[in-house]
């Protein structure tokens, strides 16, 4: 009996010791951008303008500020071109540059149009909607953060094709670039765990360093993300559930009072699938001449790390 007690203690003691107290929050800076007014020369409700992306950014700013982040905000929703320049490419890049050498955590959030150029995903700053050469590409955004010596970066994008900003690293992502029950190859890969063996060996062999930024996208690289009046007072659906995570205990999977980047992804993915996807999986649009159904899922980077984002209230 004594031996069994000794054995159990040897196994459980390290597990108990691993539950360490949370350190004091480091300095955290958030760059938050939302663009609803892309063209002041057309009505607010006309393309290329969006409806709730400015509200997304405004609400995210509030959430982050109330969670202890220092927030720099750039929201383009004005009738005046000059006021919208806070979300121009120059301003975005300058805001990143202003954090040069900062060794705390940086969160970059964007809600607006996204697209692809030659297969590379982009986000579209204010003033560039008709000039694709000025869109911010994946490589450009990552390079900017690295150039400014920023090591702890979280990128969260609520835009179409944003999955291209999510790097798998040494992992294989089972969610396809175009997720959907009616899209070709749209189902989650790897019905059985072992099904991932070939792809994961390939990922292991070909991993070449890559970025260690944590990135979460609203949708895959090949699909659209959506906004709707049916979610709160009107939001991007992904952003809506991000905002909900701060007050919904379901988002805190391990009950430690914190929402991590991984928990945020899992919560949003589950909620989008249960709500928007269940009602819209039969709807579709044409993207680059290809029929893409409206159901979609967020993506999470394959980095070993995850960050604590905010506390649950």
């Amino acid at each position, binding site marked *: 009996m004594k*031996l069994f007690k000794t054995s159990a203690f040897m196994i459980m003691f390290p597990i108990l010791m691993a539950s360490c107290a949370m350190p004091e929050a480091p300095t955290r800076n958030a760059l938050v951008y939302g663009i609803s007014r892309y063209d002041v020369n057309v009505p607010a409700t006309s393309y290329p303008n969006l409806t709730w992306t400015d509200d997304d950014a405004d609400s995210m700013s509030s959430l982050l500020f109330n969670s202890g982040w220092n927030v720099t905000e750039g929201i383009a929703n004005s009738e005046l071109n000059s006021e919208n320049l806070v979300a121009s490419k120059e301003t975005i890049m300058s805001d990143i540059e202003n954090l040069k050498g900062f060794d705390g955590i940086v969160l970059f959030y964007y809600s607006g149009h996204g697209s692809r150029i030659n297969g590379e995903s982009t986000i579209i700053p204010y003033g560039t909607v008709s000039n694709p050469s000025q869109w911010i590409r994946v490589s450009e955004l990552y390079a900017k953060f690295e150039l400014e010596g920023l090591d702890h970066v979280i990128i969260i994008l609520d835009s179409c094709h944003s999955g291209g900003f999510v790097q798998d690293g040494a992992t294989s992502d089972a969610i396809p670039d175009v997720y959907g029950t009616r899209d070709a190859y749209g189902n989650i890969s790897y019905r059985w765990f072992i099904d991932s063996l070939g792809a994961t060996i390939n990922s292991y062999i070909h991993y070449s360093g890559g970025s260690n930024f944590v990135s979460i996208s609203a949708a895959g690289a090949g699909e659209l993300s959506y906004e709707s009046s049916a979610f709160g007072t009107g939001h991007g659906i992904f952003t809506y559930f991000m905002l909900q995570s701060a007050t919904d205990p379901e988002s805190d999977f391990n009950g430690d009072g914190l929402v991590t980047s991984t928990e945020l992804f899992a919560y949003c993915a589950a909620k989008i699938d249960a709500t928007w996807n269940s009602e819209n999986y039969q709807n579709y649009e044409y993207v680059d001449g290809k029929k893409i159904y409206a159901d979609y899922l967020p993506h999470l980077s394959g*980095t070993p790390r995850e960050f604590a984002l905010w506390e649950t209230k």
Partner: protein
Amino acid sequence: MRIKLIAAIALSSLCIPLFAGPAISPYVAATGGVAVTAETDYDTFVTLPAASAAASVQAGVVIGDGLWSAMLQGGQSYQAATAFTADWYRYRGFYSLNLATGPRLQLEYFDVYLLGGFMLARYDLSFSYFFFPYLEPGVSMPVLALGDHFSLDLGVSVPVHLRADSFSAGLRAVVTVSYNETQKPLPWTGTGE
């Protein structure tokens, strides 16, 4: 480098029959302990290390009952998310399946072994799967005879995970129940009774 590592472990496993003998002793084992993880490019550690709990259940066979024998083991493991670092990040927890082989040296009262194999893992709360080789040296000692053929062993092992983007090393307590044609001698009695 990684291809060579996979090849080295895979080829080493082909040599394991050299250590084998005619006897087969199946066993089941449970392990628990701590692991320390940090990101690395295998030139330097690029992030702060952090500790977590880890546990596994394993099943295997020892082939041979002489001084040297061969081990073949498979199972499933769970490594919890680490504690948070001062920069409010931690390393993600993951579940994995593993398969390993290795030689075992049976001393009078101790067994010393070196397992080498591979893990197929998935990060918690995600759809991110990954693969990596691992090594696990260990030592165990029978502490209790259970009947004429079964024994309870206690030991420690040091699993080393050679992930592509990070490195983990741990210390685990190992509890094993094995079946042996000939009962193992206990250190304090010198007999199997």
